[in-house]
């Protein structure tokens, strides 16, 4: 069994490209070219150079001593929060903007929920001097004013998604509609390992730099390339895909995917897709998604705007179904508490998404000599208002 994608664009039963014919030429062009382009030496060189000099990679693999003592195990934090723009998202947008250039595209579109992917996209568009249009749910625009301002300052046009529930899934719908309306000159930079094939695979490959670095960094620190556990939060699942990527086929390394339980899995306000989702199709991919019995896609909830996506990338649906990854659900309260704990034990304020991954220690026991790598996917600056309100700071 393989845990990676097959040559038809599926992870096991999940994936594929369930797209209207209007999108076919665009998606097919990408499918036929993405691996070839990524293998070109000049592409690799440009990608690596930007990751190093512009993003600031490699991101440190930091041994969190006080956190380790508290939970009586060896915890390493992969510091994606130290990347330019504050999260792992930029690894993918750098890759995709280079891809778009090589495909001869002139215009970039993207969707964003909390605004992190929108900012990362606006950033690389500014860097390359390309037109940038970011679709964002009307409700999210109101909730995430600082990131909206950042995108505008970077020269992007932020277009409110007014349809449906006016959040991330609707912003994604609007971006797809834009792509249908602009089939020749536009590239759509999807922000996670979701969407039609080849997006989940392409985004995972761009994010794979995370686990590539963990391998040699751990070799330096522990004399081995493989941890016992890799832990990451999952909304769509791009930071988890990157952290898992080079360990997918090595079952000695246990993978833990952490989902947002919101106010509780069965509270009706949750984003725990693996538990609540059923097989279906969302944004062109066959995967697990939250939906009614009638197949209407429902609106998830999490205190973290980056985890409230009603689906999960097809790779993660496969990892869940096969049992390759363990899925743990963390509530808002547990995540917020873990975020505060990391801040005060290690002097690192994490993004609330990441706080979910940090909150597993109440549910999961590790041995004292286990090496647990947690992907610290983003920094908490963007969430300060949420932390302030929650802790009455």
């Amino acid at each position, binding site marked *: 069994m393989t845990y990676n994608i097959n040559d038809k664009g599926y992870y096991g039963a999940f994936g594929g490209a369930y797209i209207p*014919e209007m999108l076919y030429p665009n998606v097919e062009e990408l499918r036929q070219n993405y691996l070839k382009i990524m293998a070109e030496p000049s592409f690799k060189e440009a990608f690596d150079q930007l990751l190093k000099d512009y993003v600031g990679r490699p991101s440190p693999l930091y041994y969190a001593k006080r956190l380790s003592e508290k939970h009586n195990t060896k915890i390493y934090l992969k510091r994606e929060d130290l990347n330019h723009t504050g999260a792992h998202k930029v690894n993918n947008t750098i890759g995709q903007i280079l891809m778009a250039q090589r495909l001869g595209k002139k215009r970039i579109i993207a969707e964003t929920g909390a605004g992190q992917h929108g900012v990362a996209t606006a950033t690389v568009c500014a860097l390359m001097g390309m037109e940038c249009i970011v679709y964002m749910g009307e409700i999210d625009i109101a909730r995430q004013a600082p990131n909206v301002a950042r995108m505008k300052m970077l020269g992007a046009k932020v277009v409110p998604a007014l349809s*449906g529930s006016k959040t991330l899934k609707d912003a994604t719908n609007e971006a797809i509609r834009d792509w249908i309306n602009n089939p020749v000159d536009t590239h759509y930079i999807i922000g996670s390992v979701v969407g039609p094939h080849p997006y989940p695979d392409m985004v995972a490959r761009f994010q794979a730099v995370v686990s590539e670095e963990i391998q040699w960094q751990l070799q330096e620190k522990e004399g081995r390339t493989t941890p016992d556990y890799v832990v990451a939060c999952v909304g769509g699942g791009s930071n988890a895909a990157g952290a898992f990527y080079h360990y997918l086929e090595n079952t000695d390394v246990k993978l833990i995917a952490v989902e947002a339980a919101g106010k509780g899995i069965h509270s009706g306000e949750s984003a725990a897709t693996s538990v609540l989702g059923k097989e279906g199709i969302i944004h062109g991919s066959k995967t697990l998604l939250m939906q009614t019995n009638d197949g209407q896609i429902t609106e998830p909830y999490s205190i973290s705007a980056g985890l409230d996506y009603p689906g999960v990338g097809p790779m993660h649906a496969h990892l869940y179904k096969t049992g390759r990854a363990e899925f743990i659900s963390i509530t808002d309260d547990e995540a917020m508490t873990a975020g505060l704990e990391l801040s005060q034990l290690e002097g690192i304020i994490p993004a609330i998404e990441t706080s979910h991954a940090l909150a597993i220690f109440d549910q999961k026991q590790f041995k004292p000599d286990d090496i647990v790598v947690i992907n610290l996917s983003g920094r908490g600056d963007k969430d300060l208002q949420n932390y302030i309100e929650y802790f009455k700071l």
Partner: protein
Amino acid sequence: MRFPPSRKVNMNRINSKLQEDKKLLSIYFSAGYPNLEDTTTIIQNLENSGVDMIEIGLPFSDPLADGPTIQESSTQALKNGMTTQLLFDQLKDIRKTVSIPLIIMGYFNPMLQYGVEAFCKTCQEIGIDGLIIPDLPVDVYNEQYKATFEKYGLINVFLITPQTSVERIQFIDSISNGFIYMVSSASVTGSKTGFGEEQTNYFKRIADMKLKNPQIVGFGISNNETFTQATQYAKGAIIGSAFIKHLATDGVNTINNFTNSIKN
């Protein structure tokens, strides 16, 4: 009593209609809009007004290929309480009063949840003649679902666009057995008004391919002028957003006026 498929009496209504010597007008609407119980009234009034074929929209929460008008009618229909099962219940006796071809158009996920085979079986029992599922890709249909659709006598209709390659059009033509839905321009529904030279050239280019399946043009047709342009080379044309706008402003009882405005 069942007839063998080759006998003309059992020919799918879509194929019979396509043989008529006239340009066909097909109308799309979202089931459950403007009111939950309007479905059969709309269908009957459309037939009485002289429409040739009807596409009954099965509403979906996330209609990727649709512009604002159909999105809104879809959202409203769901709010009104429309479901797959309810639509089937409403259509149960439709063949007692309606004889023109009826096609269900919807996105794949609700069909998948209902069960593709169960969905097709119910369609056959009701007297649905075909399906249009924009996000069911041609290759997946061909490999996984073609046999099921055919078992229940359903014609599956595929879309082509100005960007679709010649080879792909030929492949789509080879696995189609009704008509080809020719999307007039690169767009979502309801977003363009009027056809220019680019579209006319595209209509002509496709007509010149002499495909085995006739073509019916959709997207961007809203009045007599665009209907006439679209059907200069194609067998017919489909109107969706403009009809839904008519329902929104004029309701379900003046459908005659709408149809007359298109045909004359």
